[in-house]
């Protein structure tokens, strides 16, 4: 048997062993399946940052046809008029108790002023304890009121040189939050498992003492660590396929505009790079519990500095720097590029390169520490 085929045989039996062990761990398997299906489904269907049916109350002091017309323009899907309010006190109470998000107050004389062509005003009180939605509600309301004003004044008159700015949203024309949430949760899950699984597999060997058995055998450290990463990559790719083809596409219609094989290939590469961080943690931890805690310390910054929620340009500068050390930052570019934007791999090359560099560094550090720890 020559050296190469022997090397391959050793790698193959280790690889098979890792998969078998994972297959026997029912609890972990159940957790993996849960994460790649139910968890992603919940995240994709649960979170929406769009203004939906903002609960609106109207305090109509004017009681004119104009005031009724204006109030009737606050329509679903953005707004829903839940009722009328008698006075200021009732308005305050509705707002501070959280029953009302918006209170539209139409002052007395509104209809008359409007009919006479006098400038008039209405008041909108917005609960901004959720700033994003508050801001959106206010800007939609501005648009409704401006259009109402313009239409009552210009009814039947000649067209004016107004500017219409039609926005075209690319890659997600209807701004489906579920696409974004679903994919980013998938990426989070991939990240968590690609750090946790190899770390757990390595620490388990340490904990049970089987690592010594491997060390006295003619295996190199690379041959011990590589199969762990490879087998977990296979598992994670399977999970990713499950999430894509059984959850994201059928339930939410995520387009998958780019090359799906390229996405899987790059996911494998990503799993490989983040596994480096997990192995690094495994060389430090003495038991599974410690490994779990350490991976949390590694994962939290990795997930939240990835730019998925807040783009680096909106972060304080000192923090934005760290973004570039999160491999997830690059993987997000890659995945959204491939799944939504339909970019080619060539266009994503810079991200791929940076991600690889980061992963190689972590992997090398893990391997080095492992070697030093075990001679």
């Amino acid at each position, binding site marked *: 048997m020559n050296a190469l085929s022997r090397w391959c045989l050793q790698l193959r039996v280790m690889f098979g062993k890792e998969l078998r062990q994972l297959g026997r761990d029912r609890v972990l398997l159940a957790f993996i399946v849960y994460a790649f299906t139910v968890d992603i489904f*919940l*995240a994709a269907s*649960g*979170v*929406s*940052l*769009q203004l939906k049916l903002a609960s609106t109350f109207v305090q109509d002091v004017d009681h004119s046809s104009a005031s009724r017309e204006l109030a009737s323009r606050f329509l679903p899907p953005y707004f829903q008029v839940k009722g009328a309010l008698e006075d200021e006190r009732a308005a305050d109470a509705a707002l*501070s108790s959280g029953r009302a998000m918006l209170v539209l107050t139409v002052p007395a004389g509104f209809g008359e002023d409007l009919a006479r062509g006098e*400038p*008039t005003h*209405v008041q*909108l009180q*917005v*609960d*901004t*304890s*959720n*700033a*994003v939605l508050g801001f*959106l509600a*206010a*800007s*939609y309301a*501005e648009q409704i*009121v*401006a259009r109402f004003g*313009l239409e*009552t004044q210009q009814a039947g008159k000649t*067209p*004016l*040189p*107004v*500017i*219409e*700015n*039609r*926005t075209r*949203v*690319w*890659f*997600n024309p209807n*701004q*489906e939050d579920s696409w*974004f949430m679903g994919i980013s949760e998938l990426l989070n899950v991939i990240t968590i498992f690609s750090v946790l699984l190899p770390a*757990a597999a390595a620490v388990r060997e340490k904990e049970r003492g089987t690592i010594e058995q491997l060390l006295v055998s003619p295996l190199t450290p690379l041959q011990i660590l590589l199969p762990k990463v490879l087998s977990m990559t296979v598992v994670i790719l399977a999970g990713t396929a499950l999430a894509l083809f059984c959850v994201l596409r059928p339930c939410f219609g995520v387009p998958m505009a780019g090359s799906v094989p390229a996405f899987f290939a790059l996911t494998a590469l990503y799993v490989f790079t983040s596994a480096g961080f997990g192995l690094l943690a495994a060389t430090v931890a003495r038991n*599974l*519990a410690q490994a*779990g*805690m350490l991976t949390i*310390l590694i994962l*939290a910054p990795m997930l*939240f500095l990835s730019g*998925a*929620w*807040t*783009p680096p*340009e*909106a972060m304080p500068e000192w923090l934005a720097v760290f973004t570039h050390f999160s491999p997830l930052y690059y993987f997000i*570019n890659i995945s959204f*590029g491939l799944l939504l934007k339909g970019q080619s791999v060539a266009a994503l090359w810079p991200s791929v390169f940076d991600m690889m560099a980061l992963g190689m560094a972590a992997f090398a550090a893990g391997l080095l520490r492992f070697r030093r720890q075990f001679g």
Partner: protein
Amino acid sequence: MKLERVRALAWKEWREIVRDRLFFALAFVVPALLMVLFGYGLSFDVENVPFALIDHDRSVQSRDYGYRFIGSRYFDFKGYAADEADAYDLIAGGEVRAVLVIPPGFGRDLAQGRPARVQTLIDGTFPNRALTIRGYVSAINAERSLDSAANYLAARSGTPYADVRARLQPVSLEVRYLFNEAVLSIWSLAPKLIMLILMISPPFLTALGVVREKENGSIFNIYASDISRGEFLLGKLAPYVAISCVNSLLLWLMAVGLYRVPFKGDFAFFALASMVYVACTTGIGLVVSVLVRTQIAAMIVTMVITLIPAVLYSGLIIPVASLSDAASFVAHAMPAMYYADIVAGCFLKGAGGAELWRPLLVLALYACALFAAGYALFSKRPAS
């Protein structure tokens, strides 16, 4: 109930936590770390949106229109793009998030009193950002559009520009932003992060702490001694509740100091509510720890049952009122929502016990129920 025993147990637990460096970090560093990470990493303030401009018209009007965007604090002008293909590359490559396209004839149409059209291409990958960008665009556009119409009418009719403009917009909308006057998303986020972190950290620590004792066998000291279940639970959990109370103070300080969120409410009430909430979430950890055997299982189970409901069904991102019926039911069944109401009320609305006694009562009942369950499930003589 012998206080001496409770004290001894609490003291021992405290020493162990303090001397185990990893655990100590988890107890004190992680909550603060999460506050920083979530605070900056989950902020939805969209500013400095990188954008590019395609000006096919190159007229005075088009330059003026473009300048309205370039000069805005919401946008960060990255340069002119040649054509749509160029725009596609810029957006797809993530270099800009929006491209404004001014077609040829824009200036001519406006000068001749005809409506003109422009187009904004927006990157929809991150829908929340796309939505906000659309809001900015339509606000800036509406302003400029009104100017253009008023200018035209004023020139034609000879009436002063200001009058024409006022007539074109007969109804002005006075918007009053309540509770978060500056409409800063961090103001709404930071108080709710206190809720989120206190939902994650105490159950995690508690479950680990109790299960650790089970896993390494020292729980047999408790089983074998004549300490009562109540004494044990009290002494064992007291340090965790105390740590989390300290953490809630720390998080409050970070919200007020680091993120400059105004605290308008009654601090004493807030402190009381936080203690009750922490007791409640510690109780979740207790119940988990009684049911599982290993630390790793404790970690996974607490994460699954605390993190997702706290993020999705607590009003952290979506107001509970906008949830579907099923989701709203889940939200009402979980303690997180009630405390979210309390923190938001205390920080931004200036509310106190008078307005918020109801959620506090629910939390208190919750805490009692969890501890009762933990007490009932904990056996000093297990079957295996």
